[in-house]
């Protein structure tokens, strides 16, 4: 058991986490990624990668992820093999404890835990997992060479994965709940699938049960129009029905999750906890792709860097000095601010050795300003021993400020 301290600790080494690591390390922050398997996340289980910009052909998921990892390491990021078991975001420091028993402390944490395939909880599904029930085409395709499989799901991912499987299997039967010809997948993917001779289609139907003694033998289908049940012999069942975020271990950590377990964030990818950011598939977002995950990683890393800088500067200049500190919250866009700064400087210079002056741009330091309830500039505030003792909108005259400062 060791205690490891870093500027930024990233939970998860998929595209979001690795991009964040590259940005953070390149910004000279000490950066560490905790990843439980080989880096790459879900992307590592996707064979064909044809929608990552710049790589139309010939790039695979694992290869792209190896490049992401190398890129992050190139700038000095560390990647450790471990799993975060629990997190505590309720204190001043962010603490992560891992399965191997180590403790990580970070100034900023980026949650890039991603998502995993959703299961359906059908009878037989759990028991036959790895026995013909699969959620990963690239992992298990080889077992099904020349065999017959069914595929549950009909979105883009389901249809693309089924088409990948047709390179191996004798037939892939798609069980589709919609009317004949209707898929959730986009037109380009749908048209390609309809031309694939190894793809078969069962419409208006759902899988009710997966059957087999130690190995998949058949599925029970129900036609939702006629309510008729039939048994279809098959060697494998591939399930591609969306994903769920891997955020269960964060319940009780202080991090807010929505009803489905996703993490709500601001545009800067801040969570409800200061200094904890979320990037990639685990957050509430519109599009979950490798390219959007990577973009999230960049945003989260830059936001984390800014956060660390802002907090350290504030702590060193305002909270730690022994003398009282006069803080002038100003904004470059406010004329009143520009008028007030020289006056503040004069007042401070007359009290050298008794009081320190710190000027804070509230536009660049919104978090600090907000924490002390300061919304408008100019505002003057006085701190002593790390505590805010008084704040007031800009006094009308330099003389008022003199009186105020002397009172403090």
């Amino acid at each position, binding site marked *: 058991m060791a205690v490891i301290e870093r500027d930024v600790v990233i939970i998860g080494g998929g595209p979001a986490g690795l991009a964040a690591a590259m940005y953070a390390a390149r910004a000279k922050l000490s950066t560490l990624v905790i990843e439980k*398997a080989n880096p790459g996340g879900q992307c590592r289980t996707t064979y064909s990668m044809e929608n990552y910009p710049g790589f139309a052909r010939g790039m695979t998921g694992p290869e792209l992820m190896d490049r992401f990892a190398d890129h992050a390491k190139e700038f000095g990021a560390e990647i450790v093999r471990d799993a975060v078991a629990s997190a505590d975001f309720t204190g001043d420091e962010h603490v992560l404890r891992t399965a191997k028993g180590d403790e990580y402390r970070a100034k900023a944490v980026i949650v890039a835990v991603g998502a995993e395939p959703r299961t359906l909880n059908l009878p037989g599904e759990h028991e036959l997992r*790895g*026995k013909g029930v699969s959620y990963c085409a690239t*992992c298990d395709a080889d*077992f099904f060479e020349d065999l017959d499989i069914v595929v549950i799901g009909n979105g883009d991912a389901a249809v693309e994965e089924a088409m990948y499987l047709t390179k191996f299997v004798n037939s892939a039967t798609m069980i589709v709940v919609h009317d004949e010809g209707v898929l959730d997948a986009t037109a380009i993917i749908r048209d390609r699938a309809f031309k694939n001779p190894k793809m078969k289609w069962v419409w208006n139907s759902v899988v009710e049960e997966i059957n087999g003694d130690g190995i998949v033998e058949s599925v029970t289908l129900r036609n939702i129009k006629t309510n008729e049940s039939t048994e279809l012999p098959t060697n*494998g069942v591939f399930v591609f029905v969306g994903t769920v975020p891997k955020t269960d271990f964060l319940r009780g950590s202080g991090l807010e999750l929505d009803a489905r377990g996703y993490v709500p964030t601001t545009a800067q990818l801040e969570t409800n906890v200061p200094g904890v950011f979320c990037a990639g598939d685990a957050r509430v977002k519109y599009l979950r792709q490798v390219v959007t995950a990577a973009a999230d990683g960049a945003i989260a890393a830059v936001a984390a860097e800014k956060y660390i800088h802002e907090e350290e500067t504030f702590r060193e200049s305002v909270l730690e000095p022994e003398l009282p500190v006069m803080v002038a919250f100003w904004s470059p866009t406010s004329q009143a601010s520009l008028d007030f700064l020289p006056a503040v400087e004069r007042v401070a210079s007359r009290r050298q050795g008794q009081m320190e002056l710190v000027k804070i741009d509230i536009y660049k330091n919104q978090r600090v300003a907000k924490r002390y309830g300061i919304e408008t500039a100019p505002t003057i505030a006085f701190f002593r021993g790390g505590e805010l003792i008084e704040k007031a909108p800009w006094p009308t005259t330099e003389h008022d400020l003199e009186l105020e400062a002397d009172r403090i």
Partner: protein
Amino acid sequence: MIEVNKENFEAEVLQAPGLVLVDYWSEKCEPCKALVPEVEALAEKYASSMKFCKLNVLENRRLSISQKVLGLPTIIVYKNGEKVAELTKDEATAANIEAMIKGQIE
């Protein structure tokens, strides 16, 4: 670890006395590759208690299916040729494998 295949599986695993662990893997299985160093460490640690084998399922597909292995990673422990414990997919973590080994030794 002993490389087993369709030629020697019968002798090395099914006819072998005592405990034999078989790590079913393939080149294309990323989680399997991630597990390799951990399984090798366990093979060293428990070398005196059981025999450790690995089986490439791509070259031994029929054999794998006959052992009811249709997903990776899968780790099976055999005792006197009988399957006595098994871990597959997400359950096949280093910690779980070690617990399974301990459970069989005791």
